[in-house]
């Protein structure tokens, strides 16, 4: 099945300039450098973690045409493993983050083998079901401490006291470095020959196969990479909020990640970041509104799908005549 997303466009070639993207990325990183001096740093850190998750998710949906409805399982795995090492064994958080990424990568490889056996809409349902499986494991397993979750993750001093993560600004710049590394890696992947093949598979899978590309192999790689980066974001979030809980693995979190990407623009490099800040900001603002958050998120979903499928960045680029 050829994934004909609204964001579909010819592969990068003549007539497409990367300049608007590069200017956008530079502006974004510059803004993030000064932002903590004006905005509450914990909100920024939380949003950056979700932004990295949305970018990792976008790598899959925007460039490989695979809509995963189960990314919460990678986020939850990263966050639980990191918190487990830190809380139960008193290990430093950097080790927890590495272990969290490793665990999410392994889970991504295992679930990827299963999920890419089905295409299109079935792929979404399979990933959703697998993530619910991981959720039930998290509920039953003893190391996750069930409803209580794992806390507190001691941020402490790392690298021989060089960095004191209990200082908000030092923690913020660590999170920013992790986000920037993940984000630039994704940008590099998208613009690599590997990324071009992914786009070709998204546009016309049978044709890519007939040209000799092993589509399943590429999809598996993209899925595992996306899982690893989502795990990185999840583990980092566990350090920021000092807590790993069942809501990290629950499928509504997958829904939030999808919504962020959809609002910002699927298949655009900056869209998911913008979307993450908007949705996180909204949730922060509406924190006291209880279940109205769910209603408003649902409304945003409906409006985006009906009238706004390119997302904010996609629509703006289309208005300005920029081909992203």
């Amino acid at each position, binding site marked *: 099945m050829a994934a004909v997303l609204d964001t579909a466009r010819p592969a990068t070639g003549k007539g497409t300039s990367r300049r608007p993207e590069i200017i956008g990325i530079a502006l974004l990183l510059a803004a993030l450098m000064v932002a903590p001096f004006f905005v509450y740093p914990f909100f920024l850190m939380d949003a950056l973690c979700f932004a990295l998750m949305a970018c990792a998710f976008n790598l899959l949906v925007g460039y490989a045409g695979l809509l995963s409805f189960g990314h919460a399982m990678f986020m939850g795995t990263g966050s639980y493993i990191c918190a487990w090492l830190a809380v139960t064994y008193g290990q430093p958080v950097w080790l927890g983050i590495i272990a969290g990424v490793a665990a999410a990568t392994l889970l991504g490889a295992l679930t990827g083998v299963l999920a890419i056996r089905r295409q299109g809409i079935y792929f*979404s349902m399979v990933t959703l*079901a697998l993530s*619910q499986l991981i959720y039930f494991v998290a*509920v039953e397993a003893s190391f996750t401490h069930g409803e209580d979750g794992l806390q507190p993750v001691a941020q402490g001093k790392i690298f021989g006291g060089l960095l004191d993560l209990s200082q908000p600004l030092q923690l913020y710049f660590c999170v920013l470095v992790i986000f920037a590394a993940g984000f630039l890696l994704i940008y590099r992947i998208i613009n690599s020959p590997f990324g071009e093949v992914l786009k070709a598979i998204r546009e016309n899978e049978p044709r890519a196969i007939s040209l000799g590309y092993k589509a399943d192999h590429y999809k598996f790689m993209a899925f595992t990479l996306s899982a690893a980066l989502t795990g990185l974001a999840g583990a980092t979030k566990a350090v920021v909020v000092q807590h790993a809980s069942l809501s990290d693995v629950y499928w509504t979190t997958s829904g939030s990640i999808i919504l962020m990407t959809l609002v910002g623009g699927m298949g655009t490099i900056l869209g998911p970041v913008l979307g993450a800040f908007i949705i996180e900001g909204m949730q922060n603002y509406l924190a006291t509104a209880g279940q109205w958050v769910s209603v408003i998120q649902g409304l945003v979903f409906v409006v985006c*799908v009906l009238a706004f499928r390119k997302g904010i960045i996609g629509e703006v680029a289309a208005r300005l005549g920029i081909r992203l």
Partner: protein
Amino acid sequence: MFQFMHYPPQLWFGQLSLGLINGSFYALLSLGLAVIFGMLNIVNFAHGAVYMLGAFCAWFLLNGFDIPYPVLVHGHLALASAHLPSHLNMWWALFLSPLFVGIFGMILQRTMLRRLDGLEPIYGLLLTFGLAAIIQGLLQNAYGSSGEPYDIPGVLSGGHNLGFMFLPNYRIFVVVASSIVCFGTWFAIERTRFGATLRAATENPKLVQAFGINVPLMITLTYGLGVAIAAFAGVLAAPIYQVNPTMGADLIVVVFAVVVIGGMGSILGSIISGYMLGLIEGVTKVIYPQASGVIVFVIMAVVLLMRPSGLFGRAS
């Protein structure tokens, strides 16, 4: 008294009859999903929400409905409500609730889902996900998450003592009622002239329209039918599980796994896999209760490895 695999027979029959009941709900919901997917090419994420809506509708019919309206209190906008009394019991609800929810579904299809014609099916999934969040969120605002009990008609209370177990009448009723609806839907689609037209319209809508058949209307009715079946399941579930805004949210994920196992290509396949997985879940509850929540997903993983297109699916 005999024992099977060291477990007492009361436990076996109790869990198997509960498994059959859960299987009835899986069958009804996956059947509706299959019918809708066949005609609209949309996976209806709102299916769990309309199931829950069906249960709430039954509860409203029995206990009356509070109509909220805005009022000004000391210059501030507030919500007041007017009570609309109603005392219609479950027999009424089994008809009226699917009817109301079906009409609601048809309105959703006409106003929103129809706009997604010709787009990727993932947009249908995303739109219905949003609709499910709205419906569930609104009811959670109004009724919390604790759940409301729902009484069954006197005829269905009580049960039979079969010697080896006590079988509540209501369980028999649920299995019989769901089988009738499942078989009726299968018969209507596979064995009647209307069903033949419907299947033809699924295969080639343009050609069927050229014969003078109103295909858009047919699509709307199909969505209404699928949603009404889910609401019917919701009414049946109301006395067993409490009427709760979240009752459909986790169920829909299990039903998706059932649909992946059975494949959405066949009506009969979705019915059989629904009952089968309910029973397997019941068996798991006896042998290894901790795994009862995940067994359906594990089976899905195994099926994906052995037969990627599903047990009854056509290889694509």
